[in-house]
């Protein structure tokens, strides 16, 4: 058995959120550059060039890429042979609070959806915990802006609606979102499971390297079709019209019930921010 102290997790989470908010990952930078090559709209190309410049400025001048520094979403993969000393959730939230304070990031979280009082430190985080083999701890920090989060959707389709039903729903969500989610977007699609699990899969799909294909051949085929259909919409960069509405569509699936076909769509803006770290414990 190995152990890891809560303070190490706190420090790691703080640094991950500061870095995620300032440094656009290389795959997202590459997606911006590739989009600029295939975009036909001159204004669209100009917008993509501005976003490349924005990413450069944020990285070199250590500023946030976007003022919506997001709700802190954290995916934790905890090795079964690793024991956390202290409370894992407290350690993560302490890291979020420290990172947002030290990084001059915006506090965007309210304590209740109805009374809407700001918590003042961007906590609490949304934590997804998965148990994995081994003795390591992998933390992925994904600050999620709500311009794009607000434009997602979920449908509980009938099995008879099948693949076409899924294509129509996903395309409809992106179409209705228009300029709001800051296109070009990454479209995360969760297929199957239960209602809440489909939504989880859609979120997790956004963490994949931009454009990396799904493992399952059925999901891969669906990704190709969805990307083609979504990019026919003409929304384009910033919604000003153009060929590149989505950089990519990522589908994740899971077995589901004989009576159901849940499908969830989670959109990510062009500033698809995430950073990860793997921590090793100490031997007991």
């Amino acid at each position, binding site marked *: 058995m190995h152990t890891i102290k809560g303070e190490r997790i706190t420090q790691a989470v703080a640094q991950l959120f500061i870095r995620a908010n300032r440094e656009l990952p290389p795959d997202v930078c590459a997606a911006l550059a590739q989009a600029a090559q295939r975009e036909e709209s001159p*204004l669209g190309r100009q917008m993509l060039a*501005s976003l490349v410049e*924005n990413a450069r400025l944020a990285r070199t001048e250590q500023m946030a890429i976007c003022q919506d520094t997001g709700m802190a979403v954290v995916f934790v993969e905890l090795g079964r042979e690793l024991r956390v000393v202290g409370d894992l959730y407290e350690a993560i939230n302490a890291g979020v609070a420290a990172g947002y304070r030290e990084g*001059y990031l915006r506090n965007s979280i309210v304590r209740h959806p109805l009374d809407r009082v700001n918590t003042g430190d961007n906590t609490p985080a949304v934590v997804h915990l998965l148990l994995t083999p081994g003795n390591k701890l992998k933390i992925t920090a994904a600050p999620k802006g709500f311009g794009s989060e607000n434009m997602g959707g979920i449908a509980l389709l009938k099995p008879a609606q099948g693949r076409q039903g899924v294509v129509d729903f996903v395309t409809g969500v992106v179409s209705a979102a*228009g300029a*709001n989610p800051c296109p070009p977007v990454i479209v995360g699609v969760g297929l199957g499971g239960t209602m809440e699990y489909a939504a989880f899969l859609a979120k997790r799909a956004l963490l994949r390297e931009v454009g990396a294909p799904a493992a399952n051949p059925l999901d891969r085929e669906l990704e190709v079709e969805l990307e083609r*259909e979504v990019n026919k919409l003409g929304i384009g960069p910033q*919604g*000003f*019209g153009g060929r590149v509405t989505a950089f990519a569509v990522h589908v994740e699936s899971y077995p589901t019930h004989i009576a159901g076909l849940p499908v969830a769509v989670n959109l990510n803006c062009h500033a698809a921010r995430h950073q990860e770290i793997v921590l090793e414990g100490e031997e007991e």
Partner: protein
Amino acid sequence: MEPIKLKTPLTKEVVGQLRAGQSCLVSGVIYTARDAAHKRLVEMLERGEELPFSPEGQLIYYVGPCPAPPGRPLGAAGPTTSARMDIYTPTLLAAGVRGVIGKGDRSPEVVQALKEYGAVYFGAIGGAGALIAKTVVAAQVLAFPDLGPEAVHRLEVKDMPLVVIIDSLGQNFYTLGRAKYATV
């Protein structure tokens, strides 16, 4: 095409010549307000009170900026989704505000008010918070400091890049741009 240079406050005549799809560079003073500040501003107008700034000819920018890092007037400061302000916008335009800056589509009521009052809806580059912050020369909290990032800020900007989304004739660049490239 070269962007049109504009200096705030804006007259009805200048705004009346702007057309959907034109790129502009705005300089001068603009005021920030998003959800919570809009609610308060509209409540002040309903009570017959003076606003924290004189609205005539001014631009309101929908933004909740990041805190200012040391040595800078402001942190990242890109636009937020405008639709959440739709219910408040006609009242502010009626009070003299000449234009608003955000991202995303607006309600038919807002389009009608833009036409009625000769005002304009600009889009700022969504997600370009660092780039836009570089055009902010000075910033100060003007009202509602308790709202934190949602407080009303007075910003002095130089050559802030904007695109005319809905002009005073009601023409919508999102609709026009999309129709040009849609293949469905």
